[in-house]
C-alpha cells in the first residue's frame, strides 16, 4: 500500500478504531475485570438460572423467527425472481417500504393491531371465530410477529440475489425433460438455492439475536431476550460485568455462526458450481 492510499483509508480507520474497536476492547476489559483476568462473570452467566432461562427464550424466539422469516421470504423471492419487470418493481417497493419506517412506529402499530381489543381480535370475534380475545402481544407470539416483519425484507433481498444467479435455462431444461413445476422446484431450484437459504438463515438468525426494541415493546416485559437483559444489567441493576459478558458471548456466537456458514457455502459451491 502506498502512502497516498493509506491516507485515503485513514479517516475510516480512525473512525473504526475510535468508535468501534476501542469500546469493544473496553467491553472485553470490563467483562474480565481488567487489569485482573477474572472469569467470574462468565462463570455466573453459566450458573445463573435467570440467564439460562432468558438465553433459552432468546434461542426459541430467534429460531422460530428465522424459520418463519426465511420460509415467507423464500416464497416472495421466488415469485420476484420470475415476475415481469413491471411487477418486480412494484413488489420491490412493497418489500422495501417497511425499511423506511422506524422500528418503534412499527412496534406500536403491531401493538394496536394485536392487543386484546385490537383490530385482529375484534375482527375474529366479529366473525365468530373466537369467543374470548387471543393473547397475541406481551408474549412470544407478539415478539415473533414483530421480528419477522422487520426481518423479511433483509431475507428477501438476500434470497433474491442468490436466486438471480440460478440460470433460468436450468428450469426450462427440467420442464422440457418432462418435469412438472413441482418437480422442477423440488429437484432443481431448491437444491440450487441451498446456499442462498443458508445465507438468509445466518443473516436472519444473527440479526434476530440482537433485537432490542421489538421484544421490549411487544414482549411487554414478560418475554425478555438477551439484549434487553443486557440493557437492564447495564442501566438498571448496574451489573456491568454481567452485561458485558453477555455481549461478548453473543458477539463470539455471531462471528462463529457467520464463519461456519461461510465455510459450508464455500464447500457446497466447490462441490457443484
Amino acid at each position, binding site marked *: 500500500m502506498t502512502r497516498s492510499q493509506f491516507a485515503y483509508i485513514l479517516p475510516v480507520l480512525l473512525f473504526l478504531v475510535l468508535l468501534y474497536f476501542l469500546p469493544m476492547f473496553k467491553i472485553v476489559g470490563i467483562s474480565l475485570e481488567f487489569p485482573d483476568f477474572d472469569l467470574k462473570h462468565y462463570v455466573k452467566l453459566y450458573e445463573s438460572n435467570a440467564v439460562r432461562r432468558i438465553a433459552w427464550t432468546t434461542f426459541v424466539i430467534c429460531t422460530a423467527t428465522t424459520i418463519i422469516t426465511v420460509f415467507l421470504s423464500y416464497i416472495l423471492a421466488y415469485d420476484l425472481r420470475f415476475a415481469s419487470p413491471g411487477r418486480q418493481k412494484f413488489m420491490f417497493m412493497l418489500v422495501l417500504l417497511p425499511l423506511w419506517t422506524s422500528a418503534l412506529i412499527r412496534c406500536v402499530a403491531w401493538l394496536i393491531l394485536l392487543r386484546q381489543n385490537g383490530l385482529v381480535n375484534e375482527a375474529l370475534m366479529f366473525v365468530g371465530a373466537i369467543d374470548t380475545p387471543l393473547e397475541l402481544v406481551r408474549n412470544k407470539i407478539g415478539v415473533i410477529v414483530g421480528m419477522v416483519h422487520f426481518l423479511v425484507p433483509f431475507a428477501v433481498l438476500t434470497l433474491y440475489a442468490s436466486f438471480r444467479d440460478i*440460470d433460468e*435455462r*436450468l428450469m*426450462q*431444461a*427440467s*420442464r*422440457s*425433460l*418432462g*418435469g*412438472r413445476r413441482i*418437480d422442477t422446484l423440488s*429437484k*432443481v431450484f431448491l*437444491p*440450487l438455492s441451498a446456499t442462498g437459504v443458508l445465507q438468509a438463515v445466518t443473516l436472519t438468525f444473527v440479526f434476530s439475536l440482537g433485537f432490542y426494541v421489538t421484544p421490549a415493546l411487544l414482549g411487554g416485559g414478560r418475554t425478555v431476550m438477551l439484549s434487553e437483559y443486557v440493557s437492564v444489567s447495564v442501566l438498571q441493576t448496574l451489573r456491568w460485568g454481567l452485561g458485558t459478558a453477555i455481549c461478548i458471548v453473543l458477539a463470539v456466537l455471531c462471528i462463529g455462526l457467520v464463519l461456519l456458514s461461510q465455510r459450508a457455502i464455500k464447500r457446497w459451491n466447490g*462441490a*457443484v*458450481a
Partner: protein
Amino acid sequence: MNDMKTRGKFLDMDTFEAVRIDNVSKYYGAVAAVKDVDCTVQSGEFLTLLGPSGSGKTTLLMMLAGFTTPSEGQIWVDTKDITHVPPEQRNFGVVFQGYALFPHMTVFDNVAYPLRLRKMPARQIRQKVEQILSLVRLDAYADRHPRQLSGGQQQRTALARTLVYDPILILLDESLGALDKQLRGELQQELKALHRQLGRTFVNVTHDQQEALDMSDRIVVMNEGGVEQIGTPRELYERPNSRFVVEFLGDSNLLPTSLAFGGTDDPSRSALIRPEAISIGASDTKPTGEDQMMVRATVRSTSYFGSDQLVEVALDSGLTLRVRVNSAHAIPIEEGGSVSISWERRNLHLVDN
C-alpha cells in the same frame, strides 16, 4: 410451397410429417419477432433454422419447445394441435445454448433425470443411461459433475439427456456456438453420425452457414421473422430465390444481366455467379465454347488461403468481382496485372432485384 417440391428427394426412407408449423406469428407489442411462418419438419430429417441474429429463428424454436406461445397460428404433431401444450407434456428434447446441465447432479443423474420423472424402475434406468452414455462415449465420466467436463463432453451429456427418453423431436439451440472452431467441426461430424445412426428428427438453430450447409437435410433461411426460402443445402446455394439468401449463404457476385449473358439488360433481375464458377486466364485467352462469356479485367488484390486464393478483379465498367482460384490450377496472378475472366452461362442463376 417450396418444401412440397423437395419432399422425398432428400431422404431415402418413407417420409412423413413429424411436426407442422402452421402460419405461426409471434408479436411483442407491435413488433413481429416471427411472422407467418409455414413449414413442416419431416420425420427423421435434420432441419436447420438459419438466419442472422434477430431473424426470429430462436423465437420459432422456443415456440416449438413450448416456452413461448404463438400470437397466431398452430403447431401440429400428427393431428394434434400442441400450440398450447406446456413443454413438459410435449415429449420434445431441447439442447440449450450453454447446455443447461444441472450443476448439482452427476452426468449419470443428469441423464437419468427425465427417466426418473417418468417413474421408470431403477434397474431399467441404469441400463438405459449406461447404454446412451456409451453411445456418446461418456461411460467413463458418469460420476463426474458438469463443471469437471470439457465443452464437448458437456454438449454430449446434454445430447444424451435428450436422447435417453426417445423424444419425438430434438431441438438444438445454437448448441455448437460456444465451442472453438476445431471442436465444433468434430462435434458436427459426430452429431451427423448420431443422426444417421438413430434416425431421430432434429431441428437445429444456428447463424453459422457452414454448419447449416454441412449438417442439414434441409435449411429454412429466416430473415426479419419470415421464411426467405426452404430447401436442401444444394438448392439454396445453387438456386437461391432472393438477394438475401444470395448474400447470406456463401460468397457471391451479382452481375447485370447484359454483362452476364450478353444482349439486352433486364433491370428487374441480376445474375448470380459464385466466385468458384469464374475462371481466370491470361489476358490473351480466347473463348472456347458457345456457352462461355469472357471479359478483360484488372487484378485488384489477392488473398492466399492455401488450398485456394480469392482474387478481386475490376472490370472496365468499374464493377469488381470475386474469383476463387483453386491453387492446383492457378496461373501466376499479380496485383495490377491484366487478365481475362470467363464463366459458363449455365452456371448463372437469375435473382430478382
